């Protein structure tokens, strides 16, 4: 069962940046239509950089690990760098084979990130 590699289970069981940020610059929510799982993402943006980020909500190991890895990857980075994060980056971070049925789970984090970046642009 190589989908449940050690790093996936580690991020699932010990998620990085799990929680909420009351001072968030922006908060977004996405639902995985496949399973109804809901994830929320809070971002604090200062001087064009992600000062802090946190996510909450339940989901499968793949969607949770993916979000945790993306948060770890982008925390402290500039919005430009966040813009550059692609779906392929996420697959690389996960590093396990993702079956077509689980693509939606793997890239839920990507959907949240894109949604927040678009909303940020509209705000400014």
């Amino acid at each position, binding site marked *: *069962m190589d989908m449940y590699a050690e790093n996936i289970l580690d991020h699932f069981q010990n998620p990085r940046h799990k929680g909420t940020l009351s001072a968030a610059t922006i908060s977004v929510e996405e639902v995985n239509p496949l399973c109804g799982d809901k994830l929320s993402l809070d971002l604090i943006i200062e001087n064009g950089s992600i000062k802090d980020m946190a996510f909450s909500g339940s989901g499968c*190991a793949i969607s949770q690990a993916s979000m945790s890895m993306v948060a770890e990857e982008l925390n402290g980075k500039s919005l430009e760098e966040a813009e550059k994060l692609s779906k392929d980056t996420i697959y690389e971070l996960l590093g396990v084979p993702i*079956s077509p049925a689980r693509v939606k789970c793997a890239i839920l984090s990507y959907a949240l990130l894109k949604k927040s970046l678009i909303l940020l642009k509209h705000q400014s």
Partner: protein
Amino acid sequence: MYQNQNLQQNQPMLNSQQLKKDFPILSRVINGKKLTYLDNASTSQKPQSVISAITDYYTNHNANIHRAVYTIAQEATLAYESTREAVKDFINARSAEEIIFTRNTTESINLVAYAYAATTLKPGDSVMVSALEHHSNLVPWQEVCRKTGATLKVIPLSGDPELRYTLDFEWFQKNIDASVKILAITQASNTTGTIVPVEKFIEVARAHGAKVLIDGAQSVPHMPVDVQQLDCDFLAFSSHKMLGPTGVGALYAKKELLETMPPFLFGGDMIREVHQQEATWNDLPWKFEAGTPNIADVIAFQEAIKYLRAIGMQEIAEHDQELAHYAKQQLEAIPQIIIHAPKNAKQMTGIISFEIPGVHPHDIAEIFNSDNIAIRGGHHCAQPLMETLNIPATARMSFYIYNTQEDIDTAIEAIKKVIKIFSPKK
């Protein structure tokens, strides 16, 4: 309600190992492992006789029905209409005019929602459903209520811990009144496996003048259902959950109601006479079957009914229930597991939902799949029920005639594997 007398004995009723041989897909091997199919609430597998009937129709009898005079068209028409007779006998309707072919349970329910409810309900009226409904028997009623100004009422789950996952019949008795024009209720939940004693609900509903629709998607395939005995007004079910092809559903409706209802869809086949500005409607049941139907699959559906009848619905009900009971016992032996099923095994059909805390049902299903075991993880199209139970999702195993205790043992091994993979690492 259907009662299983033999539950204590834990003896398999059917020779399922033998039956498996009639289902070609069950001998399919993926990654060196035979398919263990435990997602029958979603759709059932098909015996060779059903598969062959589809090929036979296209190979030997393919023609449109009800019009042409040539031989193959007559054969196709006869075969199509004889399935209607078979469905009528299967659920003991009074006449074949009371059987309408649709695409599935969902379409059957929509037919009633649009052609009956939307044309008769008024503000002040209400529709009553239950907390156990599949989205198919909920969303159409939400829509009808929005359109007509009627109110949607929901029979809650019982608060009695002994009766968890069953409906609160006392609430129903207290809250039904003359404003309730339609009771739309499932006979078996696809999520908790609860068998609803619909005859009790029907009796009370009728005394208050309500019409009753039974969602039979999970009951008609798994237990004897007799519409005259139940005295329901409508019964909806799907071929694909009872060994038949996808794309065929049935609606039973009392003839006197069908006669007063306007058509649901308009066009060819459903007419008697068409003039440039107006048309008159065909006789029952064809008034409700507009356009060329799913001829091949309706014809093959008859083979599914024959297959089920040869085994016997009472035998199937007992078999499914015994497997669910066995699965429940095996799951109860694993301390981590939370089971979402009625306490009394006699209130269960062949469906069992469970959770492993700390593991998402999708991940359970994924690990099962690595052993070629098919189960479902998710909300099972019953999101309001999940909200009521305050759980995001469950894993679900559901059984049918070809399942054995060994299939459940295989699943239990997979559960142990899941628990091991997800056990906290130091």
